[in-house]
């Protein structure tokens, strides 16, 4: 799946309040493509943008080593297509809006360092290309060339410039890349992951560049309606296992904070992968942490059961809260975590917790 707190914005863009009230408007609204079973994902074609769908994202997370110390990083490019009425010939018409988020988790820092950038597509200043990963907002970009992904995030507080090299073929989520998000068939997305990416690059903080290396995970997901009406939030993990395997698991929560839906996939070190049915995935919270900034309480450590696999999730640091109230209007937790089994770290990845601040509104 993937999800993401930014999905909130997608919903907001999709239905401006005033639009919903103007039921009988003269022009038809933007038509969106639907996620249908039977579609076969093709690579690298499907790595590119799918502008006929309402929302789409490219999400890179990973663990880096800088001077023998671990860091977490997250880079997201998000494309959303506002539901526009009429047929505006203006070159400024916001047919697509691109939003990028980036964050660094550094235990020495104690909390996230994050940056964001957004623009409407157009004038070649921002856009998402078809056929291969090619998404950019001004000088922020994520592009694939010659099979290598290149991310450039020249934010104000830090600058990240790195290449990501695939070591494994794409991991198709759900059923051949069609990932269900709820009890109803229309809540679904196309979703694949690129785990075990080799990351190399430069992280510049305070004007001082330093080389970084590590392992990353890329998610690419697109849909027009993946959130179920009943969902209030979700918990998600994506973990590069130390043995070369990969685990993804998620749980959509309902209004009673229980499981509305769940899913996931595991690929073992031999490359054999299997998907989990909703009943096979169980998220059990343990330790909670309360944010001093927002007062929100997040379960930051968990037991996750996926099929026969049973792992403990422990955060790199507690405060990986992302306060995006002033941009996307939400607060969520997203950060680097370790997967622990019998007291031994068996993988590193990312955990996302949404809807704990307030239910995600749609």
């Amino acid at each position, binding site marked *: 799946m993937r999800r993401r707190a930014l999905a909130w914005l997608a919903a907001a863009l999709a239905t*401006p309040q*005033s*639009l919903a009230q103007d039921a009988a408007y003269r022009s038809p609204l933007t038509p969106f493509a639907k996620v249908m079973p039977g579609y076969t994902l093709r690579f690298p074609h499907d790595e590119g943008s799918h502008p006929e769908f309402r929302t789409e994202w490219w999400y890179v997370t990973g663990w880096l080593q800088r001077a023998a110390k671990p860091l977490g990083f997250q880079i997201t490019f998000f494309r959303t297509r506002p539901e526009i*009425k009429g047929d505006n010939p*203006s070159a400024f*018409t916001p047919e697509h809006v691109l939003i990028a988020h980036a964050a660094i988790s550094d235990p020495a820092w104690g909390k996230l360092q994050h940056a964001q950038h957004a623009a409407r597509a157009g*004038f070649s200043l921002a856009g998402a290309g078809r056929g291969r990963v090619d998404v950019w907002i001004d000088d922020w970009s994520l592009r694939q060339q010659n099979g290598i992904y290149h991310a450039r995030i020249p934010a104000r507080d830090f600058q990240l410039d790195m290449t990501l090299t695939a070591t494994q073929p794409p991991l198709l989520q759900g059923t051949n890349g069609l990932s269900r998000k709820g009890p109803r068939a229309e809540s679904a997305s196309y979703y694949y992951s690129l785990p075990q990416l080799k990351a190399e690059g430069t992280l510049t903080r305070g004007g001082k560049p330093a080389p970084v290396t590590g392992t990353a995970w890329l998610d690419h997901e697109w849909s027009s309606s993946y959130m179920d009406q009943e969902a209030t939030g979700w918990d998600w993990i994506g973990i590069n296992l130390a043995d070369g395997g990969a685990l993804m698991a998620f749980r959509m929560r309902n209004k009673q904070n229980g499981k509305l839906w769940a899913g996931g996939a595991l690929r073992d070190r031999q490359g054999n992968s299997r998907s989990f049915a909703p009943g096979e995935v169980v998220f059990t919270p343990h330790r909670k942490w309360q944010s001093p900034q927002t007062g929100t309480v997040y379960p930051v450590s968990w037991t996750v059961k996926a099929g026969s696999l049973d792992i403990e999730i422990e955060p790199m640091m507690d405060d990986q809260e992302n306060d995006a109230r002033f941009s996307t209007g939400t607060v969520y937790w997203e950060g680097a975590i370790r997967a622990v089994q019998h007291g031994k770290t068996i993988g590193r990845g990312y955990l996302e917790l949404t809807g704990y601040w307030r239910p995600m509104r749609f």
Partner: protein
Amino acid sequence: MRSAVLPGIFQAVSGNALRDNPGRLVLALLGIALGVALGLAMHLVNTSALNEFNLAVRSLSGEADLVIRGPRGGFDETVYPRIARLPQVRAASPAIEIEAQLAGRKDALTITGIDPLRAAQVQPELLAGPENRITDLFDPDVLFLSHTAAAWLGLKVGDKLRVNVGTSSVELKIAGLLSPGAYRQRLAVMDIASAQWRLQQLGRINRIDVRLRPGSDAQAVQRELAQWLPAGVHATTPDAESGRSTGMSRAYRLNLDMLALVALFTGAFLVFSTQVLATLRRRTHFAMLRAIGLTRPALTCLLLGEGALIGALGSTLGVALGYALAGVVLEKFGTDLGAGYFRALAPVLHADARTLAAFWLLGIAFAIAGTAIPAVEAGRRAPALALKAGDEEQGLKNWRTAWPGMVMVSGGLVLTQAPAVSGLPLFGYAAVALILLGAVLLMPWLAAAVLRRLPALRYPPAMLAIAQLQATPRQAAICIAAVVTSFSLTVAMLIMVGSFRQSLDAWLTTMLPADLYLRAARAGETGFLTPEQQARIASAPGIGHAEFLRSRNLLLDPVRPPVTLLARPIDAASARSILPLLGPELAPHADEPPAAWISEVAGELFGFKPGDRISLPLDGQQHVFTVAGIWRDYARQNGAIVIDRALYMRITGDGLANDAALRLAEGATPDRVAQALLARLGSPDGIEIATTGKIRDASLSTFDRTFAVTYALEIIAVLIGLFGVSASFGAQALARRREFGMLRHIGITRFEIGIMLGCEGMLVSSLGIACGLAIGWLVSLVLIHVINRQSFHWSMNMDVPWLPLVALAVLLITAASATAVWSGRRAMSGDVVGAVREDW
């Protein structure tokens, strides 16, 4: 020890005088209070306007380092990505700013089309506010209003607003309000794509706010941009922007400030005249004090202290009054007293303690200055002489020479030749000040010279009056000077405003030769007539001849506001009958660039002269024209340029028109034709049709409203002058109780004494008014040819409004005579005959 004695002495010097003559004290107090109040009120109103203006410009351009701006009509939007991609640019926010005419209202609203995501990078506070979602703006039929605009329009979130575009209208919904702190001006924000589409500006933007990367040199970027930006598009810094905007109104504000200072000056003069007479009256008293040991400097200091006390009391009253007045003015008239410079602002009264203190001290300083001469004079007098009666006139002897006054007046006349200082007629104001001051200083000499030549009359009271004045010319001079100061100012203003109004009237006649005028939008830039509509208008029944006019804004110089380009049918042969041309005209030869006629304002601002080649940015390219003549224009304060419309259409391909001048066919009535036209055009909302008479009346009433404040100042000046006359007569009359007693003693009736005083009042005020007329005329010349010219760059024909002047003169003489009689009657009450004995 000293400190304990001082109050006692002060009591001895001033206490009795203040207690005995509260009327004098009140008058002097009021003089200062009025002066301070007016000065402060004007200043507060102006600075409030300015503050708002700067804030407005600041919040509009946010944290921008550069503002790229083109003509109001806009420039090609592809400039935006080129700017955004420059390596020195961190963020670029494109915008289209449109003055949109509101349907069903006479006003325009500034609608700014922005890309909210880009704007947020340059103006972070733009859409801040919990209730706003940037994404709401993506709906093409919504806008956000500033709180001020919402209050002004009486609309709330969810309401609809109609805006005229072309000759039809568009309905927009108010989806939110901008945060109250960010914008205090009346404006609306739309998405740039919606604004381009809904307001028919596709492909155009007219402004880009740019934030540079740290370490970039704004000036270097400006130079680089100048290389390739289209003609008429310029990059400036936000400071230059706000300077440009406030520059428009600077001269107007300075004019008001100066008027206020004149009021303060008049107040100081009032203190002076009352203090002179008061010290004269107390000469024997002071002589006694001197005789019993009070030193000369001590006496002077104490008298100055008295002036300071009056000043402090008057100033305190004045500051309170001024603050209140400013509040009332701001609420009732807005920041520019109705002149239209700050139309879109909703001002808040800004008054910091420092300003209030400065005006308070200024009032005291003026009061002390008014006291200085009599105080020094009183100290200088030998006690023995001063103890004698009838010494009053001696005290004034020192200032009978004419040369200081002469020097000042001539100095003032010389200063009128000096040019403006950075657009402000500072030397002009100095000239007015010198002429007024010189005239006051000339008065003792002039009074003596004139009074000496008065013929002797048979009628005893008149004879006595003349004899009294001839014997005390310098006391009379103070009274005359009071009249001169106030009256000359009034005369000057009357002549200037009268001339202006007359010239405006004549100008309107030339500019409005047709019978009917049709306008696509009364305000704003969104209204226009399409070629098809123009054809329909021209062929309407009852129309004899129709002429269409297109007006656009051209940015000739980034540091100045744009000039108006008017394209209308015109050629060199007909120019004089179409435009109020000034001076010579010339017809360009066939091999010369085509003709352009420039307004006086544009000529002065840009230094254009007939025969010059000028380059105008039309449609992003420079086109050269020959200046074929200069015409007078009172309508466009930033300058206007007229070119032939056929030529304009050839160059730009723009066939739209804003206005039509319609001559009626024989037998057609304006009302019937107007109705037929509205019906024919089918959408009367965006269109206004007015007869020539209606436009004239509206223009002249706007003029009168703008100058209403000067009338108020004139009335105040006249009142201060009358206070002066009354103060000096009152003081004199008290001083002359012994004389009145003697006159009564030798058989002259109270009534005859009254006549005598009336004659004195009439003579003195007539003299004052005659001088006031002369000085006022001189000052009006400076106002018309120097101050107005340099402030607003337009000329006018001198036209003296005799009737109001004569009426005012008669009124003033009557009032002055009556005041004199009234003061005398008060003095004669009680035991006048007994007063003779005071002269021991």
